[in-house]
């Protein structure tokens, strides 16, 4: 994919310049007795690509799911684009948001899943059109044209009317990315987007993600693809045991890590 062919154009920055797109402050998340996140602080600036690394069970995916409020955090604060996710602050009290308002917040945050999660009863283009039509009330004709355009940009112009069941894993994941982009999100979350793919299909998905990063999309990516992290990440965070062990530009964290746990993890991944 050539660098001229943008997938998204004119990605707007944060509402206020200099304000982080994602801000996590002492985020705690527990499932029953198990603390999965134990006080995570993270800041992702607009147009940055942030890669979350770490051993499985360390809390990376949970953090991602907390960012779009698929999981409710137990303590701390989490903002996206300056807005508190899932809650409204009135004075000292936090009020839970109504489902409709949470949905509105989520509509600005795209998410791509490890297992694609395409709607199997809809064709590729129907998958992409669904949310713009039903949530943003875009006219069907316009949604159809826009969906076709996005699918072309991710290289699936020939597969518009195909059901997910007939697509390869790589193609399905590109439809899933297109589906998220159709909502014109200000932030994209990727949860191990290439982990369920056959090795020869990983490249086509990573290419789309790299192009997105170059186009200025703000992205938080959980992945084990070290090449991707080195090439496009602006920041890398190593999460283990529910905390951010080390955090910084890839040139530092991946090349010259300071923490023992980072070194240990990298030695296992790169071996």
């Amino acid at each position, binding site marked *: 994919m050539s660098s001229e062919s943008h997938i998204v154009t004119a990605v707007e920055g944060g509402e206020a310049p200099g304000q982080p797109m994602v801000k996590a402050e002492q985020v705690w998340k527990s499932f029953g007795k198990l603390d999965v996140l134990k006080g995570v602080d993270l800041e992702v600036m607009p147009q940055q690509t942030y890669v979350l690394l770490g051993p499985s069970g360390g809390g990376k995916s949970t953090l991602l799911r907390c960012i*779009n409020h*698929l999981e409710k955090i137990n303590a701390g604060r989490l903002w996206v684009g300056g807005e508190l996710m899932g809650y409204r602050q009135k004075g000292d009290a936090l009020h839970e948001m109504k*489902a*409709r308002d949470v*949905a*509105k*917040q*989520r*509509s*600005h*945050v*795209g*998410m791509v*899943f490890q*297992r694609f*999660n*395409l*709607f*199997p*009863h*809809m*064709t590729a283009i129907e998958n992409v059109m*669904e*949310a713009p039509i*039903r*949530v943003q009330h875009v006219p069907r004709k316009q949604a159809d044209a826009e969906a076709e355009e996005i699918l072309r940009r991710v290289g699936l112009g020939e597969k*518009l*009317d*195909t*059901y*997910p*069941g*007939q697509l390869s894993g790589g193609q399905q994941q590109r439809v*899933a990315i297109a*589906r*998220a982009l159709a*909502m014109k999100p200000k932030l994209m979350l990727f949860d191990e987007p290439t982990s369920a793919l056959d090795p020869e299909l990983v490249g086509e998905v990573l290419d789309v993600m790299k192009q997105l990063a170059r186009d200025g999309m703000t992205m938080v990516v959980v992945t084990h693809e070290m090449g991707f992290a080195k090439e496009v990440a602006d920041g890398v965070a190593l999460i283990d045991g529910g905390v951010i062990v080390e955090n910084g530009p890839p040139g530092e964290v991946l090349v010259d890590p300071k923490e023992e746990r980072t070194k240990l993890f990298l030695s296992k991944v790169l071996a």
Partner: protein
Amino acid sequence: MGSANQTDLGVAAAGVGPPAPASARPEAIKAIPIRRWGRWLSAAIITYIFAALLYSFIKNSNVEWPTVWEYMFKPLTLRGLLLTMELTIISMVIGAAGGVLLAVMRLADNFVLSGVAWVYIWFFRGTPVYVQIILWANLGVFYPKLIAGLPFTGIVFGSTDSGTLVAHIIVPAILALGLNEAAYGAELVRSGIISVEAGQSEAALSLGMSPTLTMRRVVLPQAMRVIIPTFGNETISMLKTTSLIAAIGGLEMFGRLQQVWSQTFQIIPLIVVACIWYLFLTSVLTFGQGYLEAYFGKGFGEKEAEAAERRADKRAARARHV
């Protein structure tokens, strides 16, 4: 590359001759099949027994075939048949709508809603439908007056005599069959809903779809794929269950025929009439179910590649027109 590999493998396996060109398919193996004597013998024996049974049934003078044909298309039978079908359809509509409602209630976070749904299912699934039919028919004895108003306040908007209401047999019939079916429908819909992967709801929610929209557009259509075969089964079962209405004097097909034979004692021929009609209707329902399954199997079947091609052609045609 793939086809070249296949050829290589094919040659290696055959181990003879020069490599065939990649496009030519080798001649299929011609082998003498195993002779399955046991299979032939058992088939012959079963056919013999079955033929004997069929012959004895057709030739049985107690069946009185002329009587069967006479009652088969009598207005009395057909009118009963119409009521049988009406009862089936109305009860299944109530059952389906009530089932979806109860299933969603059962899965709700609100414990009052899920508790009420649980109790409803517990009662209607836990008592025989025959008992429920008789209970509804005797509503007039149970609650002589039905009053619409605000309980505990004494405010009354209106009231009706329940005895006259249930005197129309169709009322207790539909109440009993429909409400009973809703309990089964609820469990059916619930099992369909929980069969849809959690990832589907998550994907829909992450796109900003509300929980209601997620249920309506993403979860239920996929649940239908699981629900339809069993729902078809339930409809077939309902068609037959309507015959219990005869117990409260309902004149659906079976009730009418029963009325006749209680006077003419032509019990066997009339039961044969009933069986033939029930078999005919359940066969029609079975075909209908096949169509519904194909519709809700969108995206899962073998035919999808063709469907995709057709859509692509349509799209191309549209593009040419613009």
